[in-house]
Every structure is written in structure tokens, then in C-alpha cells.
């Protein structure tokens, strides 16, 4: 018996499809269903009402949550892009020894393999009022009173985000840059192109798949975070998902589900906009 080739493919992708449908597709649909349910004291009542959505859209807090979240995402995206691009550029085009490049690349990527929570907590003894940074500045007389804004503030949240997410931007960009034919750059150099033109006209356009992939990772992580903002802002700031997690712990499932649906739509729109510019699947396979 010989199966048609598409049936062989179906058997091969079947388990992944099944798991994604069971543990991602259906639960996501369920959230959408629950969002129109009625509730009382943790009890859910099947209904088809849009009260939860009305509450989300009419609550002034919603706007503030989105502004905070998008603000964090914008700052973090900008910084991780500049850092990720710069470090990748250095590793790919300036480090010529393979051994050194591998060592530096490993050094940059090893923290990615360790716990995000631990890496986040690591900033606390560093940035605190009695933390290392303040102590060093005091000792050298740069400041006379410890800086208070360093920890449990939006500044701390952004520092932790940048620390956690830069690698997710850097690795895809470095991968894309590594595939640029060095002869292109030599040709531009020989033709007398200044350094910045080589970057803007050759390196940047040819790294766009990596930039797109990295941006997707960084933006979705920043939009979906709740624990970094809780700990690092000392619960002074709230983002969309951190507010959501509070609703979930309060057993307010329909409102939480409604704001989940809205957030998923926002994040999907952002990713779709990026995918419109770059066809990631085609580029990955080429």
C-alpha cells in the first residue's frame, strides 16, 4: 500500500497539529466563549452578553494600562533593536577569527538559557537603595544620597526587560547577517561607499528577516509580561497582563477573558503588520 505524499505529511505533522489544537486552539476559543458569560462569586453562567467588553472599553484604567504596556514595548523594542543590531554587526563583520566569534556568541547567548526570574531578581541587590550601584557611586563621591529611582520603578522594569529580551533580538539578526555574502560589502567598499551607506543600503535590508523575527519575539514578550513589571516596579506600575493576572486571582474570569481577547487581537495585529513586511516562512527556508 502506498499512501499519497500529502497523507504522509499529515501523519508526520499530525501530533504537533493535535497538541497545538488541544492545548492552544481550543483553550483560546474557550477564553473567547467565557468572555461573553455572566459570573458571580467565581461561578460562571452561560450567557451571551457583552458586559465584560463594555466594562473594558469604558473603564479609564484600560487606556492607562495599554499606554503603559505600549510605552514599555516601544522603549524596549528601540533599545533592544539598536543593541542587538550593533552587537550582531560587531560579531559578524568585525570579528574575523572563528574561535573568537564562537566564544563571544556563546557568551552573549548563555544567559538566555537560564531562568528569567533569576535574571530579573539579580537586579535587586544591584539597583536597590543600599545596592551595589549606589554604594559604588557614593564611594566615589558621584552622588551624596542613594538614587531612589533605580529600583521599584519603571526604570527598573525597562532595565530588566532589556536585559532579558536583547538576546531574542540579537540571535535572529546575527543569523541573518551571517548569511550576507561578504563580497557584496567588499564590492560596495571598493566602489567607494562610505561605512554608513554600507549599513543602511546593504546590511540593514538584508537583515530584515532577522529584525522582523527578533521584533516579534521582543514585542510579544513585552506585551505579554506580568511578573517583571510586578516585581521590578514594586507593584507601582501595571500592564495589561499584570492587571489581567489580578483579575484571574480574583476569580473574575469573564472580564479577564474579555481583556485577553482584546490583547490577543492587538498582539496579532502587531505581528501581522510585521509579517506583511517580511515573509518569514519563505525567508527561513531559503
Amino acid at each position: 500500500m502506498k499512501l499519497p505524499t500529502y497523507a504522509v505529511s499529515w501523519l508526520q505533522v499530525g501530533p504537533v497539529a493535535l497538541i497545538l489544537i488541544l492545548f492552544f486552539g481550543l483553550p483560546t476559543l474557550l477564553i473567547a466563549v467565557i468572555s461573553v458569560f455572566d459570573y458571580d462569586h467565581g461561578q460562571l453562567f452561560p450567557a451571551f452578553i457583552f458586559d465584560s467588553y463594555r466594562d473594558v472599553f469604558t473603564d479609564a484604567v484600560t487606556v492607562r494600562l495599554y499606554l503603559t504596556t505600549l510605552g514599555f514595548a516601544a522603549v524596549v523594542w528601540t533599545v533592544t533593536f539598536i543593541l542587538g543590531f550593533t552587537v550582531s554587526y560587531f560579531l559578524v563583520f568585525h570579528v574575523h577569527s572563528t574561535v573568537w566569534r564562537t566564544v563571544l556568541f556563546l557568551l552573549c547567548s548563555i544567559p538566555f538559557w537560564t531562568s528569567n526570574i533569576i535574571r530579573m531578581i539579580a537586579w535587586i541587590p544591584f539597583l536597590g537603595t543600599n545596592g551595589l550601584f549606589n554604594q559604588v557611586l557614593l564611594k566615589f563621591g558621584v552622588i551624596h544620597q542613594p538614587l531612589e529611582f533605580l529600583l521599584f520603578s519603571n526604570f527598573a522594569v525597562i532595565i530588566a526587560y532589556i536585559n532579558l529580551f536583547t538576546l531574542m533580538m540579537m540571535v535572529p539578526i546575527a543569523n541573518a547577517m551571517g548569511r550576507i555574502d561578504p563580497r557584496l560589502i567588499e564590492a560596495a567598499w571598493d566602489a567607494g561607499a562610505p561605512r554608513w551607506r554600507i549599513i543602511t543600503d546593504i546590511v540593514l535590508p538584508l537583515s530584515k528577516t532577522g529584525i522582523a523575527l527578533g521584533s516579534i519575539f521582543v514585542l510579544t514578550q513585552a506585551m505579554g509580561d506580568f511578573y517583571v513589571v510586578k516585581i521590578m516596579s514594586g507593584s507601582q506600575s501595571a500592564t495589561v497582563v499584570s492587571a489581567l493576572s489580578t483579575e484571574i486571582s480574583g476569580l473574575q474570569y469573564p472580564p479577564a477573558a474579555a481583556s485577553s481577547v482584546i490583547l490577543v487581537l492587538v498582539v496579532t495585529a502587531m505581528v501581522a503588520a510585521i509579517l506583511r513586511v517580511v515573509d518569514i516562512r519563505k525567508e527561513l527556508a531559503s
Partner: protein
Amino acid sequence: MSASDNSRPWTFYILSIIVAFFLLFLYGPMLVIYILSFQGDTGGVTFPMTGLSLHWFQALFTQEQIGDVPEAFERSFLLAAIVATATVVLSVMAGLGFRRRFPGAAILFYLAIASLIMPGLLVSFGIALGFQLLGLDVNWFTSALGAQLTWTLPFGLLIMFAVFGRFNRSYEEAATDLGATSWQRLRYVTLPILLPGIIGVGLFGFTLSYDEFPRTLLTAGSKNTLPLEIWALTTNDTSPALFALGTVTTIISFVVIGVSLTAIAVVRRRRSGGRQH
């Protein structure tokens, strides 16, 4: 670095300084907690060190109030091993499947991308709701396992796309021409060539699971995984025991990375050695 250093452009030096600062930014705070985890037994969570001791490491394994760290660790390690194995097997299979055109390929691809970008807490929330509605208890080896796979499988699939993108099909054609069956071709040609990428997928699966927090938060049930245990410590307790736990899990992550990278290096070396004979 290399012999031609004297002809470096000025940008090289500026970029070197930026990269050095970046590495300091990545590792500096981590080094601080590794040092502080050896804090004396009367010391606190910041400098100065009141002494040098293993007190906080001992506290991890003995004190009741810190929760059940050794058991949480065992659970996390086992779960990560299961997730890594499933991710390797299923993403390699799916990667093979995606090499041919088949109806539904685009839908499945976008399902995987959607799963990748879904905020982790929402995955957790949806699965927890589903289990509650079905009257099932959430558990680390059922709901949490499924939740983590929705994250590791899309990653594994993307890596397999990249790996297959660089794969030279003429090796497979040669095997077929020499009379290999499709199983022999897979077993002796395709998989060995893909092995470094496959080990990479396994490493990804293991560490993503071992460190996963938001997807496990609402799906693990009453038995905590290690990141949940760490989370409980950050919100309740501010003793250097937290840093000791950070040091211990980092050491374990590093061992796993080391083993995987060594395995990849061995595979590569054996391969280049084989070519010379």
C-alpha cells in the same frame, strides 16, 4: 585577536567597548547574586557580606518555610526531560512533513506562529478554564506539559525549518540511487546530518521548559515546579536563600548547556575526522 589587528578601523574599537559593556550588563547582576548566595548566616540580601558560608544552600534543603525545593527540582527536571524528548521527536517529524506541500500547511504554520506569540499567562488561563469545565484537576504532567509544548513545539518547528533550509537534498538522492529504502535513508543519511540541529532543539526544549513560568502558573496544580517555587520565594521571602536557589538552578542550566554543546562538538569532530580517512 588575529594577526592583522593593526589595520582595524576605528569603528572596531568603539564597537568593542559597546560589546564589553553589553556583556557586563548581561553578567554583572548575575555575578552579584552568585556572590551574595554565599552570604554569612546573619547577613541580608544586600552587601555588605557578614561572612562566607554555605548556610543559605543548606537552608534550601532543610527549612520547612522555604517550601519543598528538592521535590520541585525533581519535578521540573523530569518535566523538562519529557518536554525536550517530545519536542525533538515531534518537531523533527513535522519538519520532515513540511518539506512537501500538503493541504493545510499554511494553516498549521500560522497556528504555530499564533501559539508562539500568545502571552504565556493566557495559555495557562485557557487551559486551566478548560480543565475546570471538564471537571479535571490541573497537574504538572498533564496540563502543564501541554501548556509548555504549545511554546516549545513552534520553536522546534522554526529551528527545523532553518535546519532543513540549509540541508542539501542530493545526499538523500544519492542514498536512494544506491538502493537505500526510505527508512535506511532517514536513519543513516538524513538524521545523522541533522543531528547537531536536533540536539539544539532538545536543548531549547529542555531549558524553555525548565525555566518556564507563566505557562505553568495556572496549570501546575498543587505541586510546584521550580520556577513556581522561586516565584513564591520572591513574593514572600527576602533571604539570601533565594539567591542560593538562583545559583543552584543556574549551575544546572549550565551543566545542561555544557553537555549539549559538547555533544554537538563531538558530532562535528567525528564528522570532519571521518572525512579525512
